[in-house]
């Protein structure tokens, strides 16, 4: 926001009319509306709300990256992703609570299991269809989502289950910064996210399968013509995205608790994050994730103090996510850092 004020007036007006300008202006309006409440609340409360948003930011980022990976390779939104992640979190919880697997082992086994399931889904349900005909594939991903939700409910019930925290989670496990609390769990989640992004960077940029994946994402026909087996490469993308989604779900399940729809409720924020950052940009979607999380935290924290908006309560964040998606698609379809726009579903 500081960059805005330093621009000269003429170019500022033209910039304001661009997609980025409209987006930033929208964010600025929200922030300005919140300023009185923020000042009144004091630095400590503000800092606390920022810290509280970091955990969500990391989880949105991981979930958004899973969406982006499938989108990059296929220009499709994978509507099954959220429930593949949800199912994986159940597998993790089940291994941990029923079989005594240490939590991190359970997380990795669940990631592997759903990675295999993801690759099987690609091979059996996605590949037989024409890649250029998006509708059947989108319907299939919806179907898979519904089936996984039904299975999770059938196997483990519709009630909430407590999910074990993968990090030290005693109420005392926290840093105190300027009076605000930064929980070890939050720090741990951020570290795991950072490692994961670095891992993906290495995988995509330093390995042969990563090279093939980038080639398929960039130009499928040419990728075939240099000998890339595109089917197998997409299968790799599905496996990777599914495993990542499970990691995201396991990082957030401690807060939300497990129930069959818990990831479906959260994925809208990840989708908003990916749309904002650019659906084909991994880095952009991480930035988008933290913007969405901070704005969400500020709105739910301070928003009720804006006169006349008290009735919106925490649902307001969901509304904001939808509005954000709409505004981005209308004014800056490629997102902040993306290169492609959503042309079909």
């Amino acid at each position, binding site marked *: 926001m500081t960059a805005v004020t330093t621009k000269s007036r003429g170019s500022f007006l033209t910039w304001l009319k661009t997609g980025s300008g409209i987006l930033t202006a929208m964010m600025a309006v929200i922030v300005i509306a919140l300023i009185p409440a923020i000042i009144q609340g004091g630095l400590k409360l503000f800092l606390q709300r920022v810290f509280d948003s970091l955990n969500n930011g990391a989880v949105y980022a991981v979930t958004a990256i899973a969406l982006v990976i499938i989108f990059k390779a296929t220009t499709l939104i994978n509507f099954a992703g959220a429930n593949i992640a949800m199912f994986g979190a159940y597998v993790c919880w089940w291994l941990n609570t029923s079989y005594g697997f240490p939590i991190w082992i359970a997380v990795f086994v669940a990631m592997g299991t759903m990675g295999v399931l993801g690759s099987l889904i690609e091979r059996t349900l996605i590949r037989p269809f024409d890649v250029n005909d998006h509708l059947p594939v989108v319907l299939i991903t919806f179907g898979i989502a519904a089936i996984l939700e039904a299975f999770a409910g059938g196997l483990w019930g519709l009630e909430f289950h407590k999910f074990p925290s993968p990090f030290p989670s005693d109420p005392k496990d926290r840093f105190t910064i300027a009076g605000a609390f930064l929980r070890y769990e939050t720090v741990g989640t951020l570290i795991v996210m950072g490692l994961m992004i670095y891992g993906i960077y290495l995988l995509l940029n330093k390995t042969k399968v990563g090279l*093939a994946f980038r*080639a398929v994402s960039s*130009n499928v*026909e040419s990728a*075939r*013509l240099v*000998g890339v087996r595109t089917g197998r490469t997409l299968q790799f993308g599905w496996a990777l995205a599914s495993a990542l989604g499970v990691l995201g779900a396991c990082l957030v399940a401690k807060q939300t608790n497990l129930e069959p729809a818990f990831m479906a409720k959260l994925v809208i924020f990840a989708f908003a994050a990916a749309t904002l950052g650019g659906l084909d940009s991994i880095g952009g979607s991480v930035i988008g994730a933290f913007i969405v999380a901070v704005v969400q935290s500020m709105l739910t924290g301070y928003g009720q103090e804006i006169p006349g908006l008290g009735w919106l309560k925490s649902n307001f964040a969901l509304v904001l996510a939808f509005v954000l998606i709409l505004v981005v698609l209308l004014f800056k379809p490629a997102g902040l850092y993306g290169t492609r726009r959503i042309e079909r579903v």
Partner: protein
Amino acid sequence: MSELMLKLSGVNARYGAIQVLRDVNLEVNKGEVVVVLGGNGAGKTTTLRAICAMVTTTGSIQIAGTEVVGKDTADIVRMQVAHVPQGRGTFPEMSVLDNLMVGAYTRKDKEIQADIDRWMDAFPRLRERRTQTAGSLSGGEQQMLAVARAMMCRPELLLLDEPSLGLAPLIIEDLFRRFGEINRETGITMLVVEQNANLALEIANRGYVLEAGEVVLQGSAEDLRTNEAVREAYLGA
């Protein structure tokens, strides 16, 4: 006595219900440069796509004596076939260097880096722009990249689809001179689709003329250059 690199016999090709190629017969000897001429929509691109299994094809296509109809594109490429598609087919979001790396995707030897150097020597522009994305290159530079990328798989058969499309006359001349050099230096076999018949026939040994999906004329480059119909239709004489 020359060996056959490529032999199409009775090839039909279709996109869905639309039949595009009808009973195409075409031969290319090892080390030869053969040009395919024809108007827009004649089926030139489709002929090259049929060779790489990128379109539904019946009939027989043999590469160095091996039947390839029914094979996978990825397996045909592994028979040392490189295809520079119409419109260049670079990977726009990837760097010039990565584009060359992808070209060597099927290789497992240790000389990939040496080959990258070699093609950057041949096209110094590519070295200057090696970290730039392919999409940010000029049309001519992209065409150089497309050719260099194709050469990275050390092909024995190079399929070029209208390499001159959208390029300035001087650049086209330079490019065709390079094709001639590459052919002489490496002995690579080339099948070139071209609308720029003058230049193509200069470096070609033989040529075919396609019309509405059928071969209507074939002969040595010399014969085609002097043929009345060809001169009228493709040489602007």
